[in-house]
């Protein structure tokens, strides 16, 4: 079935040629030939489409890097945005992205893994479980900007979290929750049932099985999902604009480690912020060419970040697939 089409059809041709009755039917042979050619043309066509797609991808990436090359240096990373394009940098943007990702990953990891375990191991078949599953499927299809509107109404105006890192992290955390839930469930599903039964027969309780067996075995899958979720969240722009993230920030959030007791501070959660994609959007939407260069450089960094995260996820998936042989 999966042999290459040409080989198979050649075989068929040979049989046809040897058979004296069929060989007379020139028409049939011609038909077969034209079918073979069409098969191969499609093969070529599909290949060309893939080549074209890769070419477009390549054009996109190289355009970003070539245009942004002059700004891709250390100074760019250590300067605040500025009205002068050549002096502007992305310090506040990448620190902001980092802080928001920290909140996002903790929120989505905790909630996502717990929900995944509940649905896969605990949930009874009832209306609640059905509703939760329906909600998850729908969450993945809701436009991301709607999450922003929800966060603006609830986190900003109801809970008074303000337009802060905390609000942004929570918003993106809920946005990527379905990714983590789905990968957690997949990972749990791939653990064979006899393992659970063996543990039960030794007197383990459900929680002990989850804690000592299921979680360690599925950690690779969960980690892969986490990375994919982060790669999605780090580039997400629309919901953060909607909650009112500022586009011009020339200060850093409060450092998490203080010199005075209690030494650890969570003040930064309440600080204003900007993130890489918003900074890029801000520069793209300005008319001056010089700002477009800054946008290209930011885009190049953002793209590298997502590509590295994705490559990491693919590598992890590959590595963990080889690790356990049930």
């Amino acid at each position, binding site marked *: 079935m999966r042999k290459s089409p040409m080989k198979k059809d050649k075989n068929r041709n040979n049989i046809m040629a040897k058979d004296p009755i069929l060989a007379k039917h020139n028409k049939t042979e011609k038909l077969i030939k034209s079918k073979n050619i069409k*098969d191969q043309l499609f093969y070529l*066509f599909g290949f060309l*489409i893939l080549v074209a*797609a890769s070419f477009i991808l390549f054009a996109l990436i190289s355009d970003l890097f070539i245009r942004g090359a002059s700004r891709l240096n250390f100074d760019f990373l250590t300067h605040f945005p500025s009205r002068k394009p050549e002096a502007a940098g992305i310090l506040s943007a990448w620190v902001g992205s980092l802080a928001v990702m920290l909140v996002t990953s903790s929120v989505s990891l905790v909630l996502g893994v717990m929900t995944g375990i*509940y649905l896969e191991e605990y949930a009874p078949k009832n209306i609640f479980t059905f509703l939760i599953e329906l909600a998850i499927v*729908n969450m993945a*299809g809701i436009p991301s900007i709607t999450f922003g509107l929800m966060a603006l109404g609830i986190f900003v105006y109801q809970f008074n979290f303000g337009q802060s890192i905390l609000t942004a992290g929570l918003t993106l955390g809920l946005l990527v929750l379905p990714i983590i839930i789905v990968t957690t469930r997949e990972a749990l599903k791939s653990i064979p049932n006899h393992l659970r039964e063996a543990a039960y027969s030794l007197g383990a309780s459900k929680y002990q099985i*989850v804690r000592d067996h299921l979680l360690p075995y599925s950690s690779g899958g969960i980690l892969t999902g986490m990375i994919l979720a982060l790669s999605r969240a780090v580039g997400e722009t629309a919901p953060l604009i909607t909650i009112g993230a500022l586009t011009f920030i020339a200060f850093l959030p409060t450092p998490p480690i203080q010199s005075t007791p209690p030494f650890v501070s969570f003040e930064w959660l309440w600080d204003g912020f900007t993130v890489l994609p918003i900074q890029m959007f801000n520069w*793209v939407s300005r008319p001056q060419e010089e700002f477009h260069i800054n946008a290209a450089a930011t885009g190049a960094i953002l793209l590298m970040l997502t590509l590295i995260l994705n490559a990491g996820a693919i590598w992890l998936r590959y590595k963990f697939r080889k690790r356990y042989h049930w």
Partner: protein
Amino acid sequence: MANGNSSIISGYDEKRLAHVKRRESWVAFILFLASLSTLLTVFSIIVILVTESLPFFKTVSIIDFLTQKEWTPLFDQAQYGILPLISGTLTTTWVAMLIALPSGIIIAAYLSEFIRPSLREIIKPLLEIFAAIPTVVYGYFALLFVTPVLQKFFPELPGFNMFSAGIVMGFMIIPYVSSLVEDAMRSVSKEVREASFALGASKLETTFKVVLPAASSGIIAALILSISRALGETMIVAIAAGMQPQIAFSPFQAAQTLTAFIVQVSLGDAPHGSIGYQSIYVAGLTLFCMTLILNLIGFYFRKQAQSK
């Protein structure tokens, strides 16, 4: 366990068992609470969209909202007809689908029927990259790369236009379409293909005349779900398609989409409770209703495709 039969179990064990049982039920309860967060999120999205939109409909009648041909909620002489935003949204969406659907189906057919599985494992992650690129980067690409290139062929094309936004959006959606279609094609049983081969059909004929029709519900699902994805796409259109709300069905114009409008207002200053603030929730509610209906239909067809 405290009934008459459990005389074997010592007092210590009974206590321990009770402890374990209590812990188990607590864990189950906490996990249940965590999973409620998803339900709560969807619920609060719906509630917030509706409650923040309701005041809007006290000042604007629903008929005006649905039939008026101008959308200028931030002007002094405000007009509240949603049609311009919907027309912009639909136009960018069909341009995107024009790109994404044919190429998505061809790539899916190619990957599922024509190519070795080992090669497929290499190509699929490559395709996934298209979906992983941040949309703001795509927006940059549409505005500063695709539009200038197109302007060489069509000099009268404006700097902001829905055409390049739609094209780039189409490229972004290709992997989504192709993976949905491929799943549907792969769930068509092997016997169907073999029967077709046995009747003398070529690979191409089998793919397009037998497997694809058999996977039709999967393809409808792909079509509907990717339309929904295109409707809700924000950054590409906000950057490249322009900010003028106008009724435009030609993609070679600038126009504003529902999502771009929300971005425009959010970037400015719309105080809580003002009509500008309410109007983004109205736009969001419109968008949400459109995508929700499409998603539900799409999931239905996808289920159908999987159950075959």
